[in-house]
């Protein structure tokens, strides 16, 4: 009965001109979106490779220079573009692509793509994730809204019942017939994207398992949507009402609730403004050691403590350049302050996430969105992770430079210059993004919520259509 209904529904859908046109439009849009994204990805990736190499070359070829001057001169940590960002660009557009690493300061990522766009960008981009998250659910509504109401309106349901049809089996057949073409469409999209990515030079950390996880995530999202639309179709008598209700659910799930979640999160757990943040950091910095100021109270305390530790009477007796040592201690103090303030931002982010997770119980869009971004490595978590890795590299770089300065020079030798070959000894910045299993662990709550939606909507569909 299920297979029979599946075959019949597939024939009906295929012969329905509206569905064919809608599929064609979605396929066309998807192809265009993938094409645009591929070009964008290739461009950004080429820029990344070129910029990383150039920046490193500049660093390596500084010539003879004072290490602390080099620390101020700084370098860049470039955020790699991950292959699956081709499917879901996530928040990449808003988080910046590179972080300037210098002495005494932890900088925000800069060169935010969104800031270069015109006002038209507010209307949204034609990206694969836009099609996957918004357009395909609309296509599903178009296919499924009258799936059951048309049987009632035509009167075929009565004939089916007289033939001994079992409600849930008929609906399952219809369900598969709706799910099947969408899954084929998605499968083709993902496979072609996978092949495309595998053949791109410098395609980074592409993995088929991540692509598969993304595919499964979207499949579950669509299954939930089909369930909701079929529940509506089974619960009302008229196709028109089913269409209006289904579209209302789409608006609520995909537009209203995410916006509400975002506003509520920002209202309950606001981030400090850039000015507030800078003022708080500056205030805390003043309370501790400034590596450049030997006359402050904190500097005097460090001096006394160091002399005592090494059992000497004067700084010149120390086996290293105390000025460089003090600067390193100053760096460590500043790093702690940045750590504290960035941790506060992270706590706010985590609290905001809590609100998103709560509202995800009423909108399957939210967990899907979070999982999709996370798997594509374009979410805030990955950005934080990159930002932390860049900060750790900055701290290591400062230590590397200050230690060399301290070891190789004497107190007051501000004119000391490191050899031209010294810079090459600094390890390169190598960022390893979280693995798929780590991502899954971090997003367990989204996975659970999606599964609850999946099972819950199926159960409700079963009971709604048990006796049609």
């Amino acid at each position, binding site marked *: 009965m299920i297979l029979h209904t599946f075959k*019949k529904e597939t024939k009906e859908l295929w012969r329905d001109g509206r569905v064919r046109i809608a599929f064609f439009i979605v396929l066309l849009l998807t192809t265009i979106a993938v094409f645009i994204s591929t070009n964008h990805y290739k461009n950004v990736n080429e820029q990344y490779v070129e910029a990383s190499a150039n920046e490193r070359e500049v660093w390596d070829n500084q010539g003879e220079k004072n290490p602390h001057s080099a620390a101020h001169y700084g370098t860049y940590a470039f955020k790699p573009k991950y292959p699956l960002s081709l499917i879901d660009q996530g928040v990449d557009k808003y988080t910046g692509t590179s972080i300037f690493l210098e002495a005494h300061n932890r900088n925000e990522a800069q060169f935010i793509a969104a800031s270069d766009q015109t006002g038209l960008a507010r209307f949204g981009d034609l990206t694969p994730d836009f099609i996957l998250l918004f357009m395909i659910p609309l296509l599903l509504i178009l296919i499924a809204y009258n799936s059951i109401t048309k049987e009632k309106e*035509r009167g075929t349901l*009565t004939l089916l019942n*007289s*033939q001994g049809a079992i409600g849930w089996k008929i609906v399952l057949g219809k369900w598969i017939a709706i799910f099947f073409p969408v899954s084929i469409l998605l499968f083709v999209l993902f496979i072609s994207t996978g092949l495309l990515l595998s053949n791109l030079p410098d395609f980074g950390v592409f993995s088929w398992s991540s692509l598969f996880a993304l595919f499964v995530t979207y499949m579950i999202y669509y299954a939930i949507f089909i369930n909701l639309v079929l529940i509506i179709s089974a619960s009302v008598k008229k196709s028109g009402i089913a269409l209006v209700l289904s579209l209302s659910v789409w608006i609520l799930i995909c537009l209203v609730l995410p916006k509400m979640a975002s506003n509520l999160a920002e209202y309950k757990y606001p981030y400090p403004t850039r000015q507030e943040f800078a003022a708080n950091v500056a205030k805390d910095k003043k309370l501790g050691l400034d590596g450049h100021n030997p006359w402050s109270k904190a500097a005097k305390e460090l001096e006394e403590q160091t002399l005592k530790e090494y059992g000497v009477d004067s700084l010149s007796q120390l086996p290293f350049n105390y000025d460089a040592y003090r600067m390193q201690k100053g760096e460590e103090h500043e790093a702690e302050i940045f750590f504290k303030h960035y941790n506060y931002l992270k706590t706010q982010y985590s609290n905001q996430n809590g609100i998103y997770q709560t509202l995800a119980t009423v909108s399957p869009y939210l967990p899907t969105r979070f999982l999709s971004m996370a798997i594509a490595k374009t979410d805030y978590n990955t950005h934080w992770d990159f930002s932390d890795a860049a900060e750790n590299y900055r701290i290591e770089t400062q230590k590397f430079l200050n230690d060399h300065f301290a070891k190789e020079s004497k107190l007051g030798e501000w004119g000391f210059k490191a050899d031209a070959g010294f810079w090459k000894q600094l390890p390169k910045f190598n960022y390893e993004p979280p693995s798929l299993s780590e991502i899954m662990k971090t997003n367990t709550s989204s996975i659970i919520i999606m599964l609850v939606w999946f099972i819950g909507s199926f159960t409700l569909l079963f009971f709604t259509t048990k006796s049609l």
Partner: protein
Amino acid sequence: MIRINNLTKTYGDFTALDALSLHVNEGEIYCLLGANGAGKTTTINLLLGFIKPTSGSAYINDINVVEQPKLTKQHLAYIPENLMLYPSLTAIENLDYFSGIANKKFKKGELESFLEEAGLQTSAFNKSVAKYSKGMRQKVGIAIALAKDAKVLLLDEPTSGLDPKASNEFGQLLQKLRGKGVATLMATHDLFRAKEVATTIGVMKDGQLKQQWSVDELSLKELEDSYLETMSYNTLQS
């Protein structure tokens, strides 16, 4: 084949069916006549298990329709007043699907022979049913019954809206099924068609079976007079 004993259906104070009892044996065609709201469709819906009786019992092939509705449906076929099919599918595809729902699987040739037996012209077999006339759709309905090998046929105003030729063809089909031993219960307004095809005619009013004749007992004129008399007598009574 069809056995109805004191079947009653009430909705609050309203009695849609009042202690109806009737029997339709193998190879018999029982026509239920009556005005709208007389209880004819309620009787058919009760036999189909679409609604539950307030009291009484009904059996299809000795199977209680209330206790075993799924099993009952294996033995019956139903053709409503307006048989609606899937418009984008052909007659063969519709027949294949509805037979499949009843767990009957046939090859294309077998499906064609059912349609042929039901009187549908061969050239229409593979055409979409969207442009079928009502008569052609009813023939597909008969083909569905034939494919199901149903021993009981329930018809709800099947000839209403059919042109005389189509109505006549439909009557002939019923006679063919009768010859195969199918027990048919047909609700209709069409006195003349009832006289032509039925073995027994019952007149219903206000949910009650008021009169019942064997078709051989009366001529068409006597049947018409008795029918009108029953209807008006009861109208005067009420």
